[in-house]
C-alpha cells in the first residue's frame, strides 16, 4: 500500500512512535551540531502535529478508532480464541481524544518554536529538548490510550519529564524546590493511580478500559478505586484541594515549558473526565457526584482569583488565574455530569454546559499559553518577573504588548476573543441549572479582567524607565511562537459556532456515550 495509506492506517501508533524516536535521536544529533538538533526537534513535532490532524480527520469520518499493538491488523482488538477478552494494549481514540490531540498539537508547536529562541544561550539543551519531546509523548499517550496500566505509564512519563524541565534554571535553587514539590505531588498521585489500577485488576482481571467499563458494578472496591483514581487526577490538574504546586512550578519553569505544563494539567483533567464518564459512567449516582465536581470547580474559581490579586510576580499571578480557569472547566463538565441522569434536562442544558467546559479547555490552553509566553519574553529581555520593577515596556516591546493584550482580553472573556465564546456557553447553561453558580462565574470573570488590567498597566504603561531604555523587542522566533497562539485565539474567537460544531460537540457527545466506547472494543456486546 502506498506511503500515504500506511501513514493513514498506522496514525495512532505513529503519534507515539515519532516523538519517541525523535527524543532518542535528539541525543545523538545533539552530539553532532546544535543547529541540526533544533531543526530535527521542530520537524519531528510538526510531523507529530500533522499525524494528530490525520487522526482527528479519521475520527470525524470513522467515529471511534481502535488500534491494537502487536497484531496483524490494527482493528483486531479481541483475539479469536480468547473468548471475548481484549488481551493486548490498544489505543481507543474517540472525538474527545481527537479534540485533546488538537489542543496539545497547537500548544506544542507554539512552545517549541518559542523555546528555540528563548533558550538559545543556555546549556544542556540536548536533554532539554529530549525531555520536551517525552513530555509531549506522555500527553499524547494519556489522550489516546485505551488501557489503564498504559495510562499510568504515560502519566508517569509526563510527570517525570515535567519535573525535570521545571528544574531547568537551577542557579538560584527556587526552580529546584518547585520541581521537588511537583515531583513529590506527582509521585504520590502516581501511586494512588497505581493502587486504583491494581484494585480494578484484582477484581476483574482486566486492564482494558472498555472491558472494565462493561464489568464494573459499584461494589466497595470500585468505589475505593474511583476515589483514588479521581483524587490523584484532580490533584495533578491543579484543582483546589491540591493546587499549591501550580503557582511555584508555573512561575519558575522556563516560558515555553509553562505553556506545555498548562496543557499537561488539562490532559490530566481529560484523564479525570475519562475515568468519570467512560470507566464508571452510568454506574455512579450522577447527581451527587456532579455536585462534587461543581463545588470543586467553584472553589477553584474563587480561590484562584482571590489569591491572584495580591501577587507581585507576573507568572505566579497568571498561575493562580490558570487555577481559576480550570475551575470553569470543572464547573461546565460538572453540570453536564450532574444532568447525566434525566434525558430531557441533559439535552437542553447538559450538553451546552459540557460543550462550554470542553471548549474552554482549548481556549484556555491557547490564551494562557500566550500569556505565559509573553511573560517569558519579558523575563528574557529584562531578567525579572517582579511587577513593581517593571514599567513603560510598551515603548520598546510593541509586539509583545499586542500579544499580551490579546491574551488578557481573551482570559477576561471579552467578545471578539475565544474566552468569551466558551464562557458564554457556560454562563447560559449554568444559569438555567443553578443561577447562583452563574453569578459566581461572572464575578470571577470580572475580577480576572480587573487583575489583568492592573498587570497590563504596571508592565507596559507608564513613563519609559531609564534602566529599560535599551530593551529590544523579543527575538523573531519567540514572536512567531506567540503569533501562532494569538492567531488561534482570534480565529476561535471569530468563528466559535463552526469550531463548536466541528470538534467540540462531537467531543461532548463522545464523552457521554459510554456504550459506543465499550461496543467499539467489545464488538457490540
Amino acid at each position, binding site marked *: 500500500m502506498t506511503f500515504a495509506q*500506511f501513514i493513514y492506517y*498506522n496514525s495512532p501508533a505513529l503519534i507515539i512512535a515519532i516523538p519517541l524516536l525523535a527524543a532518542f535521536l535528539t541525543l545523538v544529533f545533539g552530539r553532532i551540531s546544535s543547529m541540526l538538533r533544533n531543526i530535527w526537534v521542530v520537524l519531528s513535532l510538526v510531523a507529530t502535529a500533522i499525524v494528530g490532524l490525520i487522526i482527528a480527520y479519521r475520527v470525524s469520518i470513522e467515529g471511534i478508532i481502535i488500534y491494537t*499493538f502487536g497484531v496483524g491488523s490494527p482493528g483486531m482488538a479481541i483475539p479469536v480464541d480468547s473468548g471475548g477478552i481484549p488481551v493486548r494494549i490498544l489505543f481507543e481514540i474517540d472525538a474527545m481524544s481527537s479534540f485533546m490531540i488538537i489542543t496539545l498539537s497547537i500548544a506544542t508547536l507554539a512552545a517549541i518554536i518559542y523555546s528555540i529562541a528563548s533558550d538559545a544561550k543556555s546549556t544542556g539543551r540536548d536533554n532539554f529538548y529530549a525531555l520536551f519531546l517525552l513530555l509531549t509523548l506522555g500527553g499524547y499517550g494519556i489522550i489516546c490510550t485505551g488501557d489503564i496500566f498504559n495510562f499510568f505509564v504515560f502519566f508517569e512519563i509526563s510527570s517525570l519529564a515535567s519535573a525535570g524541565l521545571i528544574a531547568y534554571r537551577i542557579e538560584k535553587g527556587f526552580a529546584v524546590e518547585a520541581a521537588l514539590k511537583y515531583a513529590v505531588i506527582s509521585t504520590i498521585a502516581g501511586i494512588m493511580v497505581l493502587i486504583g489500577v491494581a484494585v480494578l485488576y484484582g477484581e476483574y482481571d482486566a486492564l482494558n478500559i472498555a472491558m472494565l467499563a462493561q464489568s464494573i458494578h459499584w461494589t466497595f472496591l470500585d468505589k475505593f478505586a474511583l476515589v483514588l483514581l479521581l483524587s490523584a487526577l484532580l490533584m495533578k490538574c491543579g484543582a483546589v484541594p491540591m493546587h499549591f504546586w501550580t503557582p511555584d512550578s508555573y512561575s519558575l519553569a522556563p516560558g515555553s515549558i509553562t505553556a506545555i505544563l498548562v496543557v499537561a494539567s488539562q490532559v490530566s483533567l481529560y484523564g479525570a473526565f475519562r475515568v468519570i464518564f467512560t470507566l464508571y459512567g452510568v454506574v455512579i449516582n450522577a447527581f451527587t457526584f456532579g455536585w462534587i465536581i461543581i463545588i470543586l470547580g467553584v472553589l477553584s474559581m474563587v480561590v484562584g482569583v482571590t489569591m491572584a490579586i495580591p501577587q507581585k510576580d507576573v507568572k505566579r499571578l497568571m498561575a493562580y488565574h490558570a487555577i481559576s480557569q480550570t475551575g470553569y472547566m470543572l464547573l461546565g463538565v460538572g453540570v453536564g455530569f450532574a444532568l447525566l441522569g434525566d434525558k430531557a434536562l441533559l439535552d437542553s442544558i447538559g450538553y451546552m454546559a459540557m460543550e462550554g467546559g470542553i471548549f474552554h479547555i482549548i481556549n484556555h490552553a491557547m490564551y494562557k499559553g500566550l500569556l505565559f509566553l509573553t511573560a517569558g519574553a519579558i523575563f528574557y529581555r529584562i531578567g525579572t518577573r517582579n511587577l513593581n520593577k517593571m514599567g513603560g515596556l510598551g515603548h520598546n516591546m510593541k509586539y509583545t504588548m499586542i500579544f499580551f493584550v490579546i491574551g488578557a482580553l481573551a482570559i477576561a472573556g471579552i467578545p471578539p476573543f475565544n474566552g468569551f465564546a466558551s464562557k458564554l456557553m457556560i454562563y447560559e447553561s449554568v444559569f438555567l441549572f443553578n443561577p447562583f453558580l452563574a453569578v459566581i462565574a461572572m464575578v470571577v470573570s470580572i475580577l480576572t479582567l480587573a487583575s489583568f488590567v492592573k498587570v497590563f498597566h504596571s508592565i507596559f504603561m507608564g513613563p519609559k524607565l531609564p534602566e529599560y531604555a535599551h530593551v529590544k523587542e523579543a527575538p523573531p522566533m519567540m514572536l512567531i511562537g506567540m503569533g501562532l497562539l494569538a492567531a488561534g485565539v482570534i480565529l476561535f474567537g471569530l468563528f466559535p459556532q463552526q469550531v463548536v460544531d466541528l470538534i467540540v460537540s462531537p467531543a461532548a457527545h463522545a464523552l457521554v456515550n459510554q456504550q459506543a466506547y465499550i461496543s467499539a472494543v467489545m464488538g457490540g456486546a
Partner: protein
Amino acid sequence: MRMSKIVTITADLLPPFILAFGLYVIAHGHLTPGGGFQGGAVTATGLLLMIVAYSYKDIAKAIRQDRFKLYESLGLIIVIGVGYIAFLYGATFFTNWLVNTPLPFGTYVPFGPNPGDLNTGGTMPLYNIFVGVEVFCGLTIVVLYMLSGLEEGEGSS
C-alpha cells in the same frame, strides 16, 4: 575518599562474576526468570561496585560518561527500530515479526514444559538485550552524575 583495603580488593575480584551473571540473566530472559531490566540492573551493580569502591576522581578518568549516554540512546533506538520493522511486515507497531519464521530466534515451541531452546522467542531476545544495555548504561550514568554532584557539592558549598 577511597574505600578501605578490603573493599577495594573485593571490588577487584567480584565484578567479573556479577557481570557474567547479569549477562546470563539478560541473554536467557525468555527462558529462565529474568529479562532485560533485571539483567541490566545486575550488570550495572557489578560496574557500580568498582565505581563506589574507588573515589570518583579515579573513575572519572577511566569511564567516559558521554560514551555511556551515547550507548544508552543507541540501545533505545535499536529497541524502537525493532518495533518499527514490524511496519515493514504490514503489521501494527511492536508486533513480534520474528516468531515462527526460519529467521534467527524464530523456531516454533510446542505447548508444555521443555528444557528451553535459546533460538526461540522472536523479537523477545532482541528487546531483552538492548533494554539490558539501556538499563545498564542508564543506571551507571545516574550514579556517575550523583557522584559528580557530590564532588562539586563539596567543592562549592
